[in-house]
């Protein structure tokens, strides 16, 4: 059996899933100030009177790193950045411990200006004086030549707890994002490490010695031990938990919109044949744009508790939330109140809801039920408009070859899956408006924790080869090897698959069911002076996000079981 634990803003959901489906589930309040206690309490509760030997592992999705970043509660990390020609790196300053140095590398990996060791030593001394313990080192085009970052890291290593060279954090091109990703990684490192070591130790004290995995923003997992150096990847894992929990319930060949309709927001994602769509670059959190791989998600300020506004005869919903629905003692009418008036939701004070909706009815010259119906209809239409907007944005994504443009896949949704508190009431109307089949995710109230439990390990490698200069490299893997001028992209792919397998093994993937996938394979003839002198090859491979082997026996049981 597997434990899945997802820490949410207000509640933490824990499930125990196995061959018999959902064995047990628990919901406990999240104490943001004492996250450790919350997690531990969740794990204790779910393992009560269970034979620990029957549990294979636990997967945790926490808001630990996300909250710390958003609330700015991290010990400051230092940054040493070398830009060279181009945009002034001052524009990407992270904090006062951000130093720009000389030394530069061009797009082909050629050294333009060497590193100045004295300059680096002086910066290190300053950072040390300032009490900095963790430092990120990022150079422009370090993914094409890692030498400068490596050299700088060597020089300063003796003076700090940890040094993070940018090329190991991401192999993608995007200097500003690599700076911010490396900075966040260095910033959350101590917190993440301390937290999970404490969780592990506490569990061991209680005799629970199971492997622990953490959920990432791309809907994949990673063994805790492997996550220590890359804690940045655990940022914003929340949205991916529910998407992964819905995945098994989407048709096998379909383009599915997943909608998580909450109190304050509705979060959307897209599945193509049960594989979640990834964001083109990486997550954005506060003022940080990163290269942290993430599911493509789209969030709007519209949920059951959103404010209803009347603009003349026009109803609009959200984006603000003033509190719960009036039925639950809230201050302003909400879509949930409309559902109360219509008698579709019970368990609150319908009278209060009616009191809130009545002025809207009066203004529109409708009776109470008609007004509630209008509010509900408007809510559904706004959600569908946002979904259409999301799909348009996805399809507007530029492509760079003729083939891609002409045969370019356009996402055309074929069905919708909804989950979240009021989701069930929305099914019919969303279907009417969209003309698509709409269904709820079975056991939707714990789908996030189920998704956390059932997600499999994911990872990615990037390779770059220049056969004219005679090398192939994979910056994140610290891999580099000479190649002959006639080296082919087929050979590069073989090396890539090998590196990906090694990486997958390291992060605790199930090696017998690895689904590897080519994200990018480009090969260019390099011509100098009207003569072909080599090849320029770029390859990206991934273990794609998905569910673990045998998930079907579990999710079939969940689908067959009673709703929670």
């Amino acid at each position, binding site marked *: 059996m597997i434990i899945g634990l997802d820490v949410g803003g207000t509640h933490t959901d824990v499930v125990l899933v196995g061959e018999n489906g959902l064995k047990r589930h628990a919901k406990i309040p999240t104490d943001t100030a004492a996250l450790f206690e919350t997690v531990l309490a969740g794990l204790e509760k779910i393992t009560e009177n269970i034979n620990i030997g029957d549990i294979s592992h636990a997967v945790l999705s926490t808001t630990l790193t996300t909250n710390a970043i958003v609330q700015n509660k991290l010990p400051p990390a230092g940054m040493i950045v070398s830009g060279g*020609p181009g945009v002034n790196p001052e*524009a990407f300053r992270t904090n006062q411990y951000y130093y720009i140095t000389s030394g530069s590398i061009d797009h082909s990996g050629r050294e333009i200006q060497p590193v100045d060791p004295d300059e680096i030593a002086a910066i290190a001394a300053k950072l040390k004086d300032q009490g900095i313990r963790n430092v990120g080192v990022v150079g*422009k085009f370090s993914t094409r030549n890692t030498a400068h970052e490596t050299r700088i890291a060597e020089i300063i290593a003796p003076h700090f707890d940890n040094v993070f060279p940018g090329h190991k954090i991401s192999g993608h091109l995007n200097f*500003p994002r690599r700076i911010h990703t490396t900075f966040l990684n260095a910033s959350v490192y101590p917190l993440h490490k301390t937290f999970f070591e404490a969780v592990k130790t506490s569990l061991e004290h209680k005799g629970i010695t199971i492997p622990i995995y953490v959920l990432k923003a791309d809907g994949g997992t990673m063994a805790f031990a492997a996550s220590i150096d890359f804690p940045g990847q655990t940022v914003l894992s929340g949205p991916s938990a529910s998407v992964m929990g819905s995945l098994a319930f989407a048709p096998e060949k379909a383009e599915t919109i997943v909608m998580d309709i909450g109190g304050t927001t509705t979060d959307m994602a897209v599945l193509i044949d049960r594989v979640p769509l990834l964001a083109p670059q990486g997550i954005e959190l506060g003022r940080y744009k990163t290269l942290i791989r993430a599911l493509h998600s789209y969030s709007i300020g519209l949920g059951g508790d959103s404010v209803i506004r009347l603009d003349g005869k026009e109803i609009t919903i959200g984006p603000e939330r003033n509190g719960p629905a009036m039925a639950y003692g809230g201050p302003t009418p909400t879509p949930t109140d409309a559902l109360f008036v219509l008698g579709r939701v019970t368990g609150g004070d319908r009278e209060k809801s009616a009191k809130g909706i009545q002025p809207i009815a009066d203004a529109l010259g409708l009776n109470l039920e008609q007004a509630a119906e209008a509010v509900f209809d408007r809510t559904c239409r706004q959600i569908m408009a946002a979904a259409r907007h999301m799909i348009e944005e996805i399809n507007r994504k530029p492509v760079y070859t003729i083939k891609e443009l002409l045969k370019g896949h356009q996402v055309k949704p074929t069905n919708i899956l909804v989950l979240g508190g009021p989701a069930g009431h929305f099914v019919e109307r969303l279907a009417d408006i969209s003309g698509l089949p709409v269904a709820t995710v079975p056991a939707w109230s714990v789908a996030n924790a189920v998704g956390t439990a059932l997600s499999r390990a994911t990872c990615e490698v990037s390779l770059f080869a220049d056969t004219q200069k005679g090398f192939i490299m994979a910056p994140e893997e610290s891999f580099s090897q000479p190649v002959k001028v006639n080296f082919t992209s087929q050979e590069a792919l073989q090396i890539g698959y090998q590196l990906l397998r090694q990486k997958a093994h390291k992060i605790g993937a199930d090696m017998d069911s690895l689904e590897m996938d080519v994200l990018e394979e480009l090969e260019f*003839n*390099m011509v100098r002076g009207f003569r072909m002198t080599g090849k320029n090859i770029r390859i990206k491979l991934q273990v794609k996000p998905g569910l673990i082997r045998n998930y079907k026996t579990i999710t079939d049981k969940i689908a067959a079981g009673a709703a929670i």
Partner: protein
Amino acid sequence: MLEAAYKTGLVFFPAFDWAISDTHPEREERLLYTQDQVFEEGLFDIDGITEFKAELADVRDVRRVHFCVPDEERVMTESHFISAGGAITLAKALMEKRIERGFALVRPPGHHAMRMVHGNRGFCNVNNEAVMVEFLRQTYGIDRVAIIDTDCHHGDGTQDIYWHDPDTLFISMHQDGRTLYPGSGFTDELGGPNAAGTTLNIPLPPHTSEEGFLFVIREVVLPILEEFKPDLIINSAGQDNHFTDPITNMHFSAQGYADLTRILKPDLAVLEGGYSIEGALPYINLGIILAMAGIDYSHVREPGYDLEKLRQSPQITKIIEETGKTVLQNWRQREIIGRHMKGFNKFAERRRSIFYDTDGLHETQAETLRVCDECGGALKIASRCDSGFQAMAVHIPRKACKSCKELGFTWYESADARSYDFIFLQNRTDDTYVERKRR
């Protein structure tokens, strides 16, 4: 955080699967390193810089400008439709006020493509700028347009298309035609009698540097623009003036290109040539994008840049100043020159032979223009190409007067279908394009 002072749209279409041939300068690799630079600098993340997906131009967009023999599909590839479509995408975004400026980083280029197209000339088949401009006129009612061609080669295709159009100011600055393909673009090429002076050429001596280029922009181009008062300024942004370009002989730089862009302030720029793909293009394109967006570009510097070494000789400065004077003089006397060209003629004729260097084709043209004081004038072109095709093409200009319009129809209808493989009518007054084939 970086923020663009001007909302800038980019279309990036490197056509990673299109080349003229494996080792041709116009090959897949050309914008690869530019893409690397643009991605690594994170330009698309900057607030106010938006990347748009190039759309496909359609056949009608092309027919507004060109006569393609035998047809569009035979002289154009998919990437040409995308390249021209990319320019249209930005034009739309500009008109819909989603952006304030736009730069189409597309290939293949287009400024050597003339009105009549039998094949590829100077790496170009379809004139991206002209397709974009006529789309703007047709869809948004734009009237006066200035096209400033800063490619190192004379923009002879664009010149040909707008030779008789008094509403399009075409200025090309380029390496002297006596020293570089296509061998044209001299100061006395001023447009036809109905549009004298709205075509201007500024040939520059080899080894012209930043000083010379910026002098021409400031002292010649800007004053003329000031007077012409265009609704839109388009820049044919070729990048082969760079000191490392392998097929030209100029001394321009990335800083210089950025300065030029800042001073010229084009509404829309379209990439043309530029073949120093590693040492120049990544930096020039970066400089141009930053300059368009109004972001500091002072740190943009290509390897090997040495202002002192690149400085132009006093002799070059003198030649450029003289050329500038001539051009300004021609511009100021354009009405007299036009009247002189018209004389008492009812028609103006032109015979030319045109070489399609890439495809090795040879075409001869006999052009007849109705001399007219009210409009650009009805135009007919009899064309014979050694590909074996003979065509008769009639162009009725966008703002044609009644007489020119009627004459255009008469020409089209009375052309003998036994003498030509194709007879085309390009009627810009109502956006219709028809043809008759050999009987």
